[in-house]
């Protein structure tokens, strides 16, 4: 147990991220199921408006910040050092710190569900309730007097620190710790997409941090950054939020695109088609993602010129995205496709992402978008790209890399059930939402009139959501079953091409007995250009130093929720205690002997 608390091993940290994120995914899923149960008919199942508003807010916040991003982080942690031929990340203790901050931030946010009595309010009344993008000026103290928004803005600031720290860590790791011979254009696409993602993280998160700090000042100290009565402009919040928010959606999708770019070649038996183009389009998407943010604001009334500019940039970004899809299809063309579960999810990703991408194109046209934004049509869009895209891509990664991480293959039979239940469930859940949106159902409503005529569509969506719940249960059963009964996997159960398949499953603590020299993009494959890499020695020729663990990342991390709790309970002295913990932690960390 202690070794888990002090671990600085990227493989262990990856596992910690995975299980924690999975837990939050289940919580977010439960929130979704209650939402869908409520919306199955006009009067619903009796969920009150106040509770409903917390549910949809926490569903979005949880899924984005506590499930999708950390599930991706689980793979960044476990797989990136293996793919680049390194023994660990650049800053192992900072890595651990990122995880602990994530866990504590997630716990702080979710504590809001039960913290009501501490504020003289009932349970289930103080969780964040202004939507996952918390528009001003609804979030001002005047219109949100309770601690709900304080939980939200403090929790997100904590989580932002976790993401930023990880961002710096992985940029240095990927750029600076590659095995000899692994030029950037020989980097596996998953590592490339991760690199682009981390650049987006370190540039986008400061923007939302500033927005949250300004909101915090409005709520705690009486400034008027977003308060019209004091001259503030609520629209400024939207600009800041979406300047972060749009890169954030690329942060959410690029890693999954990277995973798909690994899985498809492996199970097609041929290299990724157009590697260079796929890499460059990822980089281009990263840059262009900064130029589209106001497409989330077409209904604000920014004026026809602003709307036109953002419409154009948004349509433009569809081009590199489409290019990737064609390259993936090209990868499978002429291949010998093996339909393992990982491959099914990867193909499912492409099929669903196309739909999400097409509804996205319709959103790019402001006049059309004005009928779609803030309705269930956009809810359909986001779930096609985030569930049909990111989540299916992450599932592909789980089935693909599970043998590497645990030494056992997940059951293919259960896997196929998981896939088909998911595929049918998600389409049943989200496809009808295109229609309910176009028929006039706005989003974020706890009830709707029977006269709208969308009841039947909602029932289908609810059925689909519960089917998804069953699919997730099948997946959990698979995880459980595999612990003891999963087929043992050797180094390379799939005949993969990249370095992680050259070492045992699970890898020894030092990963590689000898850091390999890399001569190609596909080191483990024999191709017409090069032979396959020679197998690595079974034992290290010289002893490999592996750094021990450290308590300081956990202790330092702990100071942050202390500060947050102090702020939300208005105890200034406790803020100083929290600060003292952080500062002490940093000093002891800095002076601790720790050789990588």
């Amino acid at each position, binding site marked *: 147990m202690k070794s888990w608390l002090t671990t600085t091993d990227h493989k262990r940290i990856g596992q910690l991220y995975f299980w924690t994120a999975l837990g939050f995914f289940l919580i977010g899923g439960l929130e979704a199921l209650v939402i869908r149960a409520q919306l199955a008919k006009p009067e619903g199942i009796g969920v009150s408006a106040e509770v409903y508003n917390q549910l949809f807010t926490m569903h979005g916040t949880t899924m984005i910040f506590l499930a999708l991003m950390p599930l991706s982080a689980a793979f960044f942690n476990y797989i990136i050092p293996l793919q680049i031929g390194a023994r660990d990340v650049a800053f192992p203790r900072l890595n651990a710190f990122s995880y602990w901050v994530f866990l504590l931030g997630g716990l702080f946010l979710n504590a809001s569900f039960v913290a009501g009595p501490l504020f003289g309010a009932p349970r289930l009344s103080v969780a964040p309730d202004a939507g996952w993008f918390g528009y001003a000026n609804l979030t001002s103290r005047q219109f949100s007097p309770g601690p709900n928004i304080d939980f939200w803005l403090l929790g997100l600031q904590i989580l932002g620190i976790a993401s930023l720290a990880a961002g710096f860590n992985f940029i240095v790791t990927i750029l*600076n710790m590659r095995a000899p011979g692994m030029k950037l254009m020989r980097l596996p696409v998953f590592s490339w997409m991760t690199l682009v993602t981390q650049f987006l993280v*370190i540039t986008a998160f400061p923007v939302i941090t*500033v927005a949250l700090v300004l909101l915090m000042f409005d709520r705690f100290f009486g*400034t008027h950054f977003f308060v019209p009565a*004091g001259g503030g402009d609520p629209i400024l919040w939207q600009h800041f939020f979406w300047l972060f928010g749009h890169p954030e959606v690329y942060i959410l999708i690029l890693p999954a695109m990277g995973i798909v770019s690994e899985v498809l070649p492996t199970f097609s038996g041929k290299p990724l088609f157009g590697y260079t183009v796929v890499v460059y389009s990822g980089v281009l998407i990263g840059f262009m993602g900064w130029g589209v943010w106001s497409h989330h604001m077409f209904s604000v009334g920014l004026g026809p010129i602003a709307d036109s500019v953002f419409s154009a940039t948004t349509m433009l970004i569809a081009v590199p995205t489409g290019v990737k899809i064609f390259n993936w299809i090209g990868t499978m063309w002429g291949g010998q496709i093996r339909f393992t579960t990982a491959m099914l999810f990867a193909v499912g990703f492409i099929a669903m992402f196309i739909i999400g991408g097409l509804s996205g194109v319709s959103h790019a046209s402001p006049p059309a978008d004005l009928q779609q934004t803030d309705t269930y049509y956009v809810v359909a869009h986001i779930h096609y790209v985030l569930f049909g895209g990111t989540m299916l891509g992450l599932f592909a990664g789980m089935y693909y890399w599970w043998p590497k991480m645990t030494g056992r293959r997940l059951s293919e039979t259960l896997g196929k059930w998981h896939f088909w239940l998911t595929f049918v469930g998600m389409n049943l859940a989200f496809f009808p939402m295109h229609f309910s949106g176009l028929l006039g159902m706005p989003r974020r409503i706890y009830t709707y009139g029977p006269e709208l005529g969308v009841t039947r569509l909602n029932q289908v969506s609810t059925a689909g959501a519960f089917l998804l719940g069953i699919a997730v249960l099948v997946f959990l059963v698979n995880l459980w079953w595999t612990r003891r009964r999963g087929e043992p996997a050797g180094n390379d159960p799939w005949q993969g091409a990249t370095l992680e398949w050259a070492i045992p499953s699970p890898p020894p603590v030092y990963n590689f007995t000898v850091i390999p020299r890399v001569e190609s993009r596909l080191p483990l494959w024999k191709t017409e250009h090069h032979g396959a890499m020679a197998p690595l020695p079974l034992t290290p020729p010289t002893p490999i130093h592996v750094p021990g663990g450290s308590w300081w990342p956990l202790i330092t991390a702990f100071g942050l929720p202390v500060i947050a709790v102090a702020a939300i309970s208005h105890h200034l002295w406790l803020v100083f205690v929290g600060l003292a913990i952080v500062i002490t932690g940093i000093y002891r960390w800095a002076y601790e002997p720790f050789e990588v």
Partner: protein
Amino acid sequence: MSQAHHTSMGLDNRKMAFWAFIGSECLLFGSLISTYLIYKGKSLVGPYPHDVLNIPFTSFSTFDLLMSSLAMVLALAAIQRGDMKQGKLWLFVTALLGIVFLGGQVYEFSSFVHEGLGLTTNLFGSTFFVLTGTHGAHVTVGVIWLLTLWVQALRGKLGPKQAVTVEITGLYWHFVDVVWIVIFTLVYLIQ
């Protein structure tokens, strides 16, 4: 402190991480500066910038911070060549000049409050204090960092082998200085 290893791009890991950090800090200060500029001229009530800003005084603060960057350069050069006597001296001078800057800020802030400009008085007060306050917090962290190094040097534990750490300290300090130049220009000089 950890040793430098061979790296793919030839740059020490810690230095590369720090440059990435500076990149993200640019976005942080950029957002705060943008907020200031967006709300410039939009305050509903005074005091307004021309009522309170004292260019001569702040010019002196700016000069002080610039000189502190010079001291930092001298400190690094000394430590790199192993001259720890000079190294300790210039580290201390850098920190001292930083403290002088902070003292100037405290004086300026309290005189503004005295003149009726507080954090919540108007948009100018809010944006000004949050921007310069964030910068001041960064300077404070820098001063603590410098003094920590200075104490380490006094204990004989800082030398040419730790030059990378000092270089990174310098990077941070120069960055904070550059941010101040931008703030000084946009807030004080161009009103």
